């Protein structure tokens, strides 16, 4: 049975941590279509977490088409997240390396690069909302 974990210091809301773990496990192949997720009571009792938070996470997964409830049986994985193919990885990596070389040539050190990426990602996430 799949088991969740919770990092109290991560700053990520607990329900999102649960959603992320299912997404990540799907990407890594630890969870597959048809697998049953633990019951709300089991997760609440295991992690000492508010059951309404678990319900909210499962609803979000249903909304994303990744999980679905079967009456009387529980919540099951219904979708797949296809991991990026090795080709895609290589292409993205090549363009990233090119960008990093440009950044270093422009005088940015690792810390500045990390900060810039965080700012850009933050702005992109904001646009999504």
């Amino acid at each position: 049975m799949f088991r969740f974990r919770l990092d109290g210091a991560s700053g990520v809301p607990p329900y999102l941590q649960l959603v992320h773990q299912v997404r990540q496990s799907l990407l890594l192949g630890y969870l597959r279509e048809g697998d049953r997720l633990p019951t709300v009571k089991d997760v609440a009792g295991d992690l000492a977490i508010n059951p309404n938070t678990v319900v909210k996470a499962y609803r979000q997964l249903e909304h994303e088409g990744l999980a679905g409830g079967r009456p009387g049986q529980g919540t099951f994985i219904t979708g797949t997240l296809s991991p990026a193919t090795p080709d895609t990885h290589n292409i993205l990596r090549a363009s990233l390396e090119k960008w990093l070389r440009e950044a270093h040539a422009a005088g940015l050190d690792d810390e500045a690069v990390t900060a810039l990426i965080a700012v850009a990602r933050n702005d992109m996430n904001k646009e999504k909302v």
Partner: protein
Amino acid sequence: MTQGDGGGSPPALRTAGLGRRYGHVWALRDCTLTVPAGAVAGLVGPNGAGKTTLLQMIIGLLQPTEGQLEVFGETSHANSTDALARVSYVAQDHPLYRDFTVADMFHLGRAMNPSWDQGVATTRIDALGIPLKRKIKGLSGGQQAQVSLAMALAKRAPLLALDEPVSSLDPIARLDFMREVMAAAADTGVTVLIASHVVSELERLCDWLIVLTGGRVQLAGPVDDLLTAHQLLTVPRATRDAELPGFLIHRADSDRHSTVLVRTDPARPAAQERPGWGVEPVGFEQLVLAYLQRPPGTAADDPAQAATRPGPATKEVTR
């Protein structure tokens, strides 16, 4: 388990203008709040903020000096059997008779509570490996807390009030205790009210939050709504409070910039439209700490309700 969709069923808790005075001193005043059935509500505040006074009125041990108090739609009168039957209570020091065995305590619980479910009590204690024949004084602090909790749950009251239940326990015993509380909430839908000053532990537990300081409600409402109603801004030091996109809750000034936590006001221009301002969402602990740091007496009314109230910003500013 579900929350707030009881089809018109009364909330677990509703207070209006509730207050309690000891002599000339108000321990709690103007307390107006609602907690829906099925919620897990955190009650946060420093010592002396009025948490225990509020809890003792809710459980029917203390008569309010003024205002109304309803538990599941029924007005509570102190020391009435009805009021006492609607709420289970675990006190901070887990009062148990030290020379009694666990079985003796359960026997006492059964004799004193008409709705007592012996199976609930013994199943929990068995699952935790606590021997029924062991005397209370032979149990660890964590085990004593678990016996108190098992007794509170066996009473099968729809509201479970916990007053600093884990403050004296080690981290593992705290986690074990809260596991049992959350499993019970999932299993039976019992509404839970937890008074605590361990803010960092409350985020995972609560979907409803009440912050008390100086006998006043500073903040009350559903955690998700409260978080989205606030923003953490980084602004130039010269920025005046009136330019902020909402009510100032907390402000920390550096030489050139200031970090401010505001309750956003839809009537004011959004912070996102100000070039050079940093805008971040607020975390649970940040939010609670910001309200705890407000000087007592700054919130004359429930800020969560004020946030939804139309009209210009008032001078609710604290420094």
